Structure formats: structure tokens, C-alpha cells
């Protein structure tokens, strides 16, 4: 596969420019970066526009841009569940999350587990929420690096160095890793926010060009859809006594959207906004990204129609990365050289930016809810901020190690499980914005949900997250996160009721009703 030098030069220039922007981010609206809320939440200062870019960049990651079209490419209509997922999360964002912002800003909470600690006064439950967040977000960082790997491979940059412990490492990946680590460390969320603006502009340019140029070259949208195998164009019809693929489709969207804003990096993005109104306004304007996502999903079909998977020059890429190579191959095949460089820069920067905010979220979580809570309760704010920076670096190093040493499939499987685990924090975080159940009941419900969800996915060999339930002679294919959450909720409610009747309600709630509005 021969890549034009023009592609590589455009890519390298854009990447370097954006990295510089990130490093200069510490000077932008400079705050006292030795404070955790300054480094890790940008001083809670971002207005509607910056939050739009930040949350947009945060929720729609490079991995999304590669994996969603890859799913459409390989499995067809099922992959389009990303669209209801990415639309229906906004009414929820609009209703519930301004409440989280208000209570967090009133009490100085930085993480979801901070809120749980305050709301329930139960260290065990707060720890469970913090650990769930940490474990779920780590493989997500690893997948961003996988996205970067795909781009580097598509560019044909196959220089490697041999390092002790890590073995043979791709040099461009290592360079990208150090850029990421450097701007995260020095600028915190401010640098990330600046990069988000650049990243999203590049993404929108790429998407606009792709949906105009590629279908035109392929002979129109009708031709694109005609190339898709007929049995994949729609969801499979349901057999008798089976709720069918349609039910799985809806539960996949539902479970994913319930989990999304509870991920640590989403919470970080939400809490960094300057007021609850910023979040409410963003619920109206963020769906613009969902439109882009829907169009990006269709790139998977364009890849089918273009036949890139049958071209010998892309065979090696498909062999290494499977369907994840569909979009890079499509760009290389369809775009002029310089524009392919721009598109790849969009994806690579789109991997850096969420990876940075995820690492920051890890730093915040570990420092606030494990280090300060259990190890050094009387640490100074400066120690707190320094600790978070170090943890953020370790999280990225861990992800790099993960990507290099273990197979990518583990990262994908863990990310699949991560979504299911995060969904189990719904009763203790999302529901707790409205109703306070008993913390002991919530902990039991969480444990049951996590256990059951993990068991269901394990019994499917970690290949799928849609577990078929058999109830009253019917087969119900349901996203494991949703069925586990149902058990979790029922258990939490019933146990709360039992505990209330037997031991009385625990009332160590440091928040008040007025804090939420």
C-alpha cells in the first residue's frame, strides 16, 4: 500500500498544530492549576459554546467514528442503534443533569462518587461507584489508542522502536502518547477544551465532504443502499414467540443512553460548565453531533458500495483491524491525498481529546474517592491536584500497555462490559437526583446488577451483549445492561422497603431539596 507523502504531511502539520494548541491551553483564561477543580474541571468556567465542543468531542470519540461505521459495514441495520442512542440521551440530559450540576457546584463535588458520598453518607457505596467508573473508563482510553493505531496503519507509518518491558512499539503511537500526556498534565481540562474546538471543526469538515463527495462518486444514495445485502438492510424479522431484533435494538439504545452521562468523562464534561443553563441549552444544540453520527454510520454502507474490502491494497489493513479498517480504507480510496490527511488528522485528534478527558476523569475519581477518602484524608489541595495529574498519566500509560501487550479484543470486550457496569450506577446516581433509596439496598442492587450483567455476557463468550431471556414461552433478546438494571432496581427498591421497615432509614444526607434546582 503506497501512501502519498502529501497525505502524511497534511496529517503531521495539523496534528502538530493542534498539539501546540493543547499545550498553550494552560494560559487560556488561566486559573490556579494547583487546585483540582481548576485543573480537572477547568474552573467550572465553560459557557454554552465551549461546553458544546467539549461534550461533543467527549461523547463522540474517534472510536465511535471508526466502530459505528464498522458495525454497519459488518452487521448492517443493527449498527444504526447509535442514532436513537445519540438522540434520546438529550431529553434525559435536559431533565436530570442540571440537577447534578447544581448540587455539585453547591457542595464542591467533582465526581459522581463525590455526590453519592454526600447524598448517602455511605463510604462503601461511594467506593463502588468510583471503582465502577474507573474500571469502565480505562478500556475506553485503550480503545482511543486503538483508533489512533488504525489511522497510523492507514498512513503506512510502520516505524517501530524496541523498548524495555513494552517490546516493539510503533514510534508514531509513542509520539502521540507523549503529546497527549504532556498537554493533559500541563493544561488539564482547559487544553482539552481548546483541542475539542479544533477537533470538531475538522470532523465536521470531513463529514460534510464525505457525505457529498463519496455518494456522488458512487452514483447516489440509492446505489449505496442497493449495495447493502438485503438481509442486512433492515432488522431481522422476529420469529414466532420472539420479540426479535427490534427489541434488542431498542434496549441497546436505551441501556447505552442511560449509561452515557454516568461515565466519568461525561460527568467531568457536564460539571465543567459554568451554569445549569449551559447544560439545558446544550441539550438542544448537541443533537447536531447526532446528525453527524448518523451520517458517519452511513459511511459503513459507502464502504460496502465502494468495495474497498476486496481491493488488494487494503487487504493488510483489513487483516490487522478487521471491519475497523473500513472507514480509513474508504477515505484513502475516495478522497484526494491532501484531504485524506485532513480526515485522518480529524480521527487521530478525535482520539487524543477524549482520551485526555477520560484520563482527567480517572485522576479526579482516584484522588477524590480513593486517595483522599481512604489513604490521605487530610491532604492539601495542592497534593490533591498533583495526585490527580499523576493518576491521569498512569491511566494513559496503563491504556498504552493494554493496547500493546494484550489483544485489541480484550479492550473491546472490557468496554462492552464497562457499559453494562456503568448502567448499574443508575439507581445510586441518576435516580438519586430525585429519590433517595437506602444506600445498603443500593449497594446490594449494584452488586447483583454487575454480577448478573457480567455473567450474561460471559455466557455469550464476550462476543455479544444481547442476552436472550426466556420468559413464559417467549424469547426476549435484551441488552444485558437493561435486564441487569431491572434486577438491580427491583432489588434496590424492595430492600429499601424491607430495611426501612426493620432497621429504619439511614438519614445521613448532606444535600437538601433546594440544592438541586
Amino acid at each position, binding site marked *: 500500500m503506497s501512501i502519498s507523502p502529501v497525505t502524511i504531511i497534511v496529517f503531521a502539520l495539523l496534528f502538530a498544530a493542534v498539539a501546540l494548541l493543547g499545550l498553550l491551553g494552560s494560559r487560556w483564561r488561566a486559573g490556579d492549576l494547583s487546585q483540582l477543580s481548576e485543573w480537572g474541571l477547568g474552573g467550572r468556567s465553560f459557557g454554552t459554546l465551549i461546553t458544546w465542543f467539549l461534550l461533543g468531542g467527549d461523547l463522540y470519540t474517534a472510536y465511535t467514528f471508526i466502530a459505528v461505521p464498522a458495525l454497519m459495514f459488518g452487521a448492517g441495520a443493527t449498527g444504526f442503534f447509535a442514532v436513537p442512542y445519540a*438522540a434520546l440521551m438529550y431529553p434525559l440530559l*435536559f431533565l436530570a443533569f442540571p440537577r447534578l450540576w447544581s448540587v455539585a457546584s453547591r457542595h464542591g463535588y467533582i465526581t459522581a462518587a463525590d455526590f453519592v458520598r454526600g447524598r448517602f453518607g455511605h463510604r462503601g457505596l461511594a467506593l463502588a461507584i468510583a471503582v465502577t467508573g474507573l474500571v469502565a473508563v480505562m478500556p475506553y482510553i485503550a480503545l482511543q489508542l486503538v483508533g489512533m493505531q488504525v489511522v497510523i496503519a492507514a498512513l503506512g507509518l510502520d516505524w517501530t522502536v524496541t523498548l524495555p518491558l513494552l517490546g516493539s512499539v510503533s514510534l508514531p503511537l509513542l509520539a502521540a502518547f507523549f503529546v497527549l500526556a504532556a498537554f493533559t498534565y500541563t493544561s488539564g481540562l482547559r487544553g482539552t477544551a481548546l483541542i475539542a474546538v479544533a477537533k470538531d471543526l475538522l470532523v465536521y469538515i470531513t463529514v460534510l465532504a464525505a457525505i457529498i463527495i463519496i455518494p456522488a462518486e458512487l452514483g447516489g444514495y*440509492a446505489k449505496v443502499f442497493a449495495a447493502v445485502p438485503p438481509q442486512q438492510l433492515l*432488522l431481522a424479522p422476529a420469529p414466532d414467540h420472539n420479540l426479535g431484533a427490534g427489541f434488542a435494538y431498542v434496549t441497546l439504545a436505551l441501556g447505552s443512553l442511560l449509561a452515557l452521562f454516568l461515565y466519568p468523562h461525561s460527568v467531568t464534561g457536564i460539571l465543567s460548565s459554568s451554569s445549569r443553563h449551559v447544560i*439545558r441549552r446544550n441539550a438542544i444544540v448537541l443533537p447536531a453531533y447526532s*446528525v453527524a453520527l448518523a451520517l458517519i454510520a452511513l459511511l459503513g454502507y459507502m464502504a460496502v458500495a465502494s468495495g474497498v474490502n476486496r481491493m488488494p491494497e487494503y487487504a493488510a489493513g483489513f487483516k490487522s483491524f478487521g471491519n475497523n479498517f473500513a472507514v480509513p480504507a474508504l477515505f484513502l480510496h475516495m478522497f484526494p491525498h491532501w484531504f485524506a490527511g485532513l480526515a485522518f488528522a480529524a480521527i487521530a485528534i478525535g482520539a487524543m481529546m477524549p482520551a485526555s478527558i477520560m484520563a482527567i476523569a480517572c485522576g479526579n475519581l482516584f484522588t477524590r474517592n480513593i486517595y483522599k477518602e481512604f489513604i490521605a484524608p487530610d491532604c492539601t489541595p495542592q497534593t490533591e491536584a498533583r495526585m490527580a495529574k499523576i493518576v491521569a498519566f498512569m491511566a494513559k500509560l496503563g491504556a498504552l500497555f493494554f493496547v500493546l501487550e494484550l489483544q485489541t479484543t480484550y479492550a473491546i470486550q472490557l468496554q462492552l462490559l464497562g457499559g453494562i457496569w456503568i448502567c448499574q450506577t443508575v439507581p445510586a446516581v441518576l435516580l438519586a437526583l430525585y429519590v433517595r433509596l437506602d444506600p445498603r439496598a443500593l449497594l446490594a442492587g449494584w452488586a447483583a446488577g454487575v454480577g448478573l450483567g457480567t455473567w450474561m455476557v460471559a455466557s455469550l463468550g464476550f462476543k455479544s451483549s444481547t442476552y436472550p431471556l426466556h420468559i413464559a414461552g417467549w424469547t426476549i433478546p435484551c441488552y444485558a445492561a437493561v435486564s441487569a438494571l431491572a434486577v438491580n432496581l427491583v432489588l434496590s427498591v424492595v430492600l429499601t422497603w424491607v430495611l426501612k421497615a426493620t432497621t429504619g432509614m439511614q438519614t445521613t444526607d448532606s444535600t437538601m431539596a433546594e440544592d438541586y434546582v
Partner: protein
Amino acid sequence: MIEDKPPRRGFRPVYLFLAIPYAVWVWPPFYNRVSPELLGIPFFYWWQMLGIFITALCIVPVYRWQEGQKGGGRK
């Protein structure tokens, strides 16, 4: 003993707008079809893309209502 439920202010019909987006997707047999096509795009795909716009538009009246409430002196 602290009553920690936020004060209930009764049901406001304007919030029903937020249920509309969920209604768009709740019944897959309705949108799991090819025709009618739009610009060569099967119904399954353009209907759901339209749903994104419906979702954003349904939040607007609730947003405006809440803004009006603030002006009216409450909170």
C-alpha cells in the same frame, strides 16, 4: 428526620413534549421498512435521522416554558 424528596409541584403537561422523542423509536415494526424512500434512502434510515430533529425540537418548548417560569418570579 429530613424529607429529602424535592418538592412536587404537580404535573405540568408541557413535559409531555419530552416523551415524544421516545415515541418515535419505541415501536420498531413501524420504522423497520424500506418504503417510502427519500432521495434513495430507505424509510428505516431517514425516519430515524428525522427523529434527531424531532428530539431537539421537542426540548425547545420545555426550555422556553422553564425560562418563562423564572421570569414569573418563582425560584
